[in-house]
């Protein structure tokens, strides 16, 4: 299968390891990976802030460049939800409405692509650590992804998965919300970090780097020993 990777802007610029891990995993599974150079952002920041014409300026080229893709795989539940769920709304009653509807079923969040579309859960990964999984809200509630990342983690050798209290509670990132209402975003993050700390986990794992950027930012500032890591980076470990 030819897999078109969508590497979101912050993954590209801040967490290249996540994208690299995805490429390695998909290639190991025998798929051809393509990654169009021009695609950089899904347009969610403008969309979530209410600036839909500005969001369409970013999203329209994405839509055009992805229209011939066989499948589109994204390292983020949030950007995945943007393409899969929100593009049809963003482009409703525009000339691209049909294209947005046609793209939606081809879009997969990475963990769900592996576990649900390909039916692969054992990637031969090894990661000897105690981890807890944070459900990113968009992946969980917009895309309905709950078990796929856990099924994948269960097959990782040496890994112990412990559930934290309120795993499904938002970490407080919320895109521009984190900068517009930093005190609320931070308070929510503190609750999340406390829940993770109670489990005694070494790592907080998620399928969304944006949540992890926020949580890691808080953990580092607090001097906490807990680290964060994207699911793809664990699955690529040998």
């Amino acid at each position: 299968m030819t897999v078109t990777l969508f590497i979101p802007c912050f993954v590209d610029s801040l967490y290249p390891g996540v994208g690299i891990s995805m490429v390695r995993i998909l290639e190991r599974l025998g798929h051809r990976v393509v990654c169009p150079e021009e695609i950089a952002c899904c347009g969610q920041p403008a969309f979530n802030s209410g600036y839909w014409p500005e969001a369409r300026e970013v999203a329209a080229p994405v839509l055009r460049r992805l229209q011939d893709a066989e499948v589109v795989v994204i390292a983020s539940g949030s950007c995945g939800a943007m393409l899969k769920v929100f593009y049809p709304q963003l482009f409703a009653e525009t000339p691209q409405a049909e294209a947005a509807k046609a793209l939606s079923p081809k879009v997969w969040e990475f963990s769900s692509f592996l576990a649900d579309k390909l039916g692969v859960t054992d990637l031969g990964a090894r990661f000897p650590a105690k981890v807890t999984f944070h459900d990113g809200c968009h992946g969980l509630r917009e895309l309905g992804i709950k078990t796929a990342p856990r099924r994948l983690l269960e097959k990782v050798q040496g890994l112990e998965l412990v559930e934290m209290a309120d795993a499904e509670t938002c970490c407080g990132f919320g895109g521009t919300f984190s900068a517009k209402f930093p005190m609320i975003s931070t308070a929510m993050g503190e609750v999340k970090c406390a829940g993770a700390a109670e489990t005694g986990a070494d790592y907080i794992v998620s399928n969304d780097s944006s949540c992890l950027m926020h949580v890691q930012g808080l953990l580092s500032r607090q001097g906490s020993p807990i680290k964060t890591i994207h699911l793809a980076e664990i699955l690529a470990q040998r």
Partner: protein
Amino acid sequence: MTTHVQEFLAQARVVTRDLRHRGLIQTALRKYETARDRKKAAFNDWQSARQAAAETKWDAINHLDTYLAEFADKMEARGTRVHWAGNAAEAREIILGIIKSKGARSIIKSKAMTAEEIHLNDAMEKAGYEVVESDLGEFIVQLRHEPPYHIVFPAMHLTRDDINELFQKELGSASTREPEELTMIARRALRRKYITADVGITGANFAIAETGMISITENEGNARLTAALPKTMITLVGIEKVLPKLEDLALFLPMLATAGAGQTITGYNTMYGGPRQPGECDGPEEYHVVLLDNRRTELLADPEQRDALHCIRCGACLNVCPIFKNVGGHTYGTTYSGPVGSVITPHLRGLQDWKHLSGSSSLCGACTEACPVKIDLHHHLLRNRRNAAVGEPSFFERLAYRLFAFVINRPGLYRFAKEAGRLTEPLQKLIRDTPLDPARAWTGTRDLPPMPEQSFKEWWEERR
């Protein structure tokens, strides 16, 4: 003059720093969640129940004109006076008019968020009447001269010590930490008021069109006394509270109890069909029902967000909302707080003045998942944001998104921006969390991730 958004931000700053306050709310709501999950499990299929409830409300709201007329006709047929209040001022005027015509002095009131919405107590007190809240939680916040903290749990932000202190000061009671004793103190103070009150005012949980009845559900029996003892009864009800049929209550009463308070069914469930009928020995001599619009019809006119009128005010969305759990109920500065408040307040009180409530959400969707009548809450927040930006766009924000689009759509420029980020990283570290730091909103509490040597796209290019 401070604006609503400034007040919201200032209050959010206070509460998010108050670990005791946040701990109190979060502990209480954790207990609620456990109880709610247990009661949800008693439903054969909670999701089907939600679907059925949503469809019933959809029917009620989309045929509001016929159901309201049916409700009013049936009520009037048994001697109830039905009043139609277009806005808050009209509702206050109607109610004050009734009170005045009865020559009343003292008024007893059971819990009604609609009364909060129209600031009824204020108006009655200014007109010289004594008003006493009979719901224990409402009684407590009234003594504190505070609005209710939560739609269902008005005094959830207070500990028994806070209440003890308050009762000692305001009621002169003896000190106690026992919840039962504290309740008895309030009960003794309230019983006298029921007997002397001339008018009883209630809210309503549902208005049944088929039979012309008001359904009130409560745990303390105070609404029954409020309705039964005074000679005149007034019910203030939002027009969206209509249910088509009596049998709809078979679903809605347990659902409200489960979603709202983690109960199988609320303690007291009463139907009010009108004033005392000939041959009956109790009940009010006169019954007035005031139907309140107050811009609900504007929400009705918006097909995208009309389902926000499905709301049965159970508070489930507040209880699961991580924003509510960290800023508390009073921070919102609105009658209806939490997710549903953030959705409807911009409609009821002005989009531009209250759009910050729709903005102050991470859009996590926990509210939508919890809502028993399936209101698309978190997506409505997005729609409010869009409508606000269309109505009055922020010059700088729009410019920022245009610039972002300009850069991100040009690979060369985007590469340059990343390079610039890498080059200025040491400088960023120097000015971190100072007024010079453009990322201060982030860096005030959070570290920025280190910029990697190579971006993914650079790695990809190099590999090819």
